[in-house]
């Protein structure tokens, strides 16, 4: 892979184009464009999308924002659907009916990945299909109205774990899906988000796409409606997520853990929490903020050890 250059990348043919109906400040479209930009220009793609904001906003009959091939079949089965397409490709290629290179990519939100699509994902990764599964993680069921998922962080206010007189939002910590995917012994798994000039996401996407076999990319993709931040703050929120170590950037290549970003100054989690309306109710509750800080610190220390730091 040649050295990353944002200007050059931005001049490439877009595979996911404007006209889609995603909200301003939504991370889903940014994630898709970022991943697809890492596909070599001469290669083709088949993108499967689970039922999600992304799906209902990007391919409404008779329009499509997908310049390459696209498939949606249901909510919980994008990994299985794409694995079937990849199987067809292998069969037809073996029979000499296709000679072009195709890349198979599954996109789903955290609901379609951490929860309802978890089995389908696990099965496809275990079977070893040559595909990349991209979770655009916005930490709740945003498409249906911001309900809790197993990716929603503790104390976040969501519509099925509302803040009440007795219960302060969601009471469980976020599931660590990336580690679960690493435990599948797949050749490539990584966490990324939108920081700086998108180099981190681009390079990880490229590795995921051009590593033979199954790869998993977990992309923190904030949602302005659900997280309650002004749309123009998308990039700032992502930067805070990595600088507070709430969303560490790392990759695991054939079982070897590598930290890809280490903040010069690790910021306190409150810097990330206070800019989002979903945590507003704990801003005057230092004990809860402290609990979240301890949770993040513990996980970060463990990650550093895994990465040989």
């Amino acid at each position, binding site marked *: 892979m040649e050295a990353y250059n944002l200007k050059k990348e931005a001049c490439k043919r877009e595979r996911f184009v404007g006209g889609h109906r995603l909200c301003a400040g939504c991370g889903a479209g940014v994630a898709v464009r970022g991943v697809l930009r890492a596909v070599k220009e001469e290669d083709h793609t*088949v993108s*499967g999308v689970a039922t999600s904001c992304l*799906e*209902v906003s990007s*391919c*409404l*009959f*008779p329009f*499509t924002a*997908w*310049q*390459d*091939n*696209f*498939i*949606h*079949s*249901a909510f*919980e*089965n994008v*990994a*299985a*659907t*794409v*694995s*079937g*397409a*990849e*199987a*067809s*490709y*292998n*069969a*037809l290629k*073996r*029979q000499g009916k*296709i000679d*072009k290179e*195709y890349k198979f990519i599954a996109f789903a939100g955290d609901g379609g990945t951490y929860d309802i699509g978890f*089995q*389908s994902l*696990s*099965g*496809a990764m*275990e*079977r070893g299909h040559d595909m990349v599964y991209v979770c655009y993680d916005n930490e709740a069921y945003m498409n249906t109205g911001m309900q809790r998922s197993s990716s929603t962080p503790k104390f976040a206010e969501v519509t099925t774990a509302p803040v009440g007189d007795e219960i302060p939002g969601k009471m469980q910590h976020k599931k660590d899906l990336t580690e679960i995917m690493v435990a599948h012994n797949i050749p490539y798994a990584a966490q990324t988000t939108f920081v700086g000039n998108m180099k981190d996401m681009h390079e990880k996407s490229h590795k995921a796409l051009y590593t033979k076999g199954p790869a998993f990319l977990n992309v923190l993709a904030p949602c302005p409606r659900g997280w309650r931040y002004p749309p123009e703050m998308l990039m700032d929120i992502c930067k805070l997520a990595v600088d507070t170590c709430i969303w560490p950037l790392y990759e695991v290549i054939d079982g070897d853990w590598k930290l890809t970003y280490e903040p010069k100054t690790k910021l306190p989690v409150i810097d990330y929490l206070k800019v989002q309306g979903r945590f507003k109710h704990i801003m005057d509750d230092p004990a809860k903020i402290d609990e979240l800080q301890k949770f993040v610190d513990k996980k970060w220390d463990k990650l550093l050890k895994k990465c040989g730091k």
Partner: protein
Amino acid sequence: MAFAKAIRERLSGNEAVATALKQINPDVVAAYPITPSTEVVHYFAQYYADGEVNTEFVAVESEHSAMSACIGAASAGGRSATVTAACGLALMWELLYVASGTRLPITLAVVNRALSGPININNDHSDSMGARDSGWIQLYAENNQEAYDNYICSVRIAEHKDVQLPVMSCQDGFITSHAIENIELLEDAEVKKFVGKYNCDFNMLSGTPTSVGPYDTPMFYFEHQYQRAMAMKNSKQVILDVYKEFAKLTGREYGLFEEYRCEDAERVIVVLNSSAGTAKYTCDKLREKGEKVGVIKIRVFRPFPLEELAAALSKFKAVAVMDKADSFSGIGGPVFTDVRHACYELENRPHIINYIYGLGGRDVTEENFVTVYNALAEVVKTGKTGEIYRHVGVRGV
């Protein structure tokens, strides 16, 4: 007329279907084990391991993923197939509609088994009857020969340009799936020639960027459903045409349903799958005694052969429709409601009653059918239909 060379074999219904699958040699088979269809997957996995097929065999982690993978595979231009039974079919339910709504010619071998609960692994038709309105063509088989023949024909029916719908070919779990019977197979090359090459105009690997499964707004959804419904309507003629061509090849003639000893019959039983054999046996015995009885065996349940069945039934005095599944509607089983509906416009309607029978593998006996024929005799004698929703073979009734 000279037919293609027949290979005489002795196979179970499962091995017959597996053999058909091997000869069809699909691009993708995605399957998951469930009793009593598991054997088909065993056989096919062995063909795959031995390099006897050119297929990508995807051993998925659930039936939901099996159908999902078939949807992905068919959308990518591959001929795709799977096998299941009972709860496996129920788990596929959501995707059955996606497959037919996306107009994907997937073929599915169903080995009929009762749905839970309570759990039961034996035969009835609650699984495929539950999927009767999912936009899939449904073919039923009396024996291993018909299971084999239906499966081969199903590929041609599904992929026909006027149809483009998925097809499920059903046979009875254990009764025909595990019983070994004589069978006439076609040579591999004949099957390959008959099913032909799969050419799919619209697919994701065609070189023209293709979007499959868009969000369909109220502006378009209804039109797409209408097209699916018309495809199902069109499929009736296509099924007849494919059967005709198959008969030229094999000498085995099939229609939408089979009329057995119905020429001068007054009392007729309508039935599908393996119980038709027992019904015919009982019919023969009663014919020896001079009773004017007959059997109609439905082979094609979706599309439902309404006009043809009505015309056939118009000749009889009393008809009993056998349902190996209850629809829990309080008014009878699924085959009954459709058959009775078919006769509404007839000037001379026969009396039509329903029998729920054989649920969860309850033995279906000659005595059961004698009971039914006797009940029909009573209806004819009194001229009164009486209770329409009846049960046979269940204790305490």
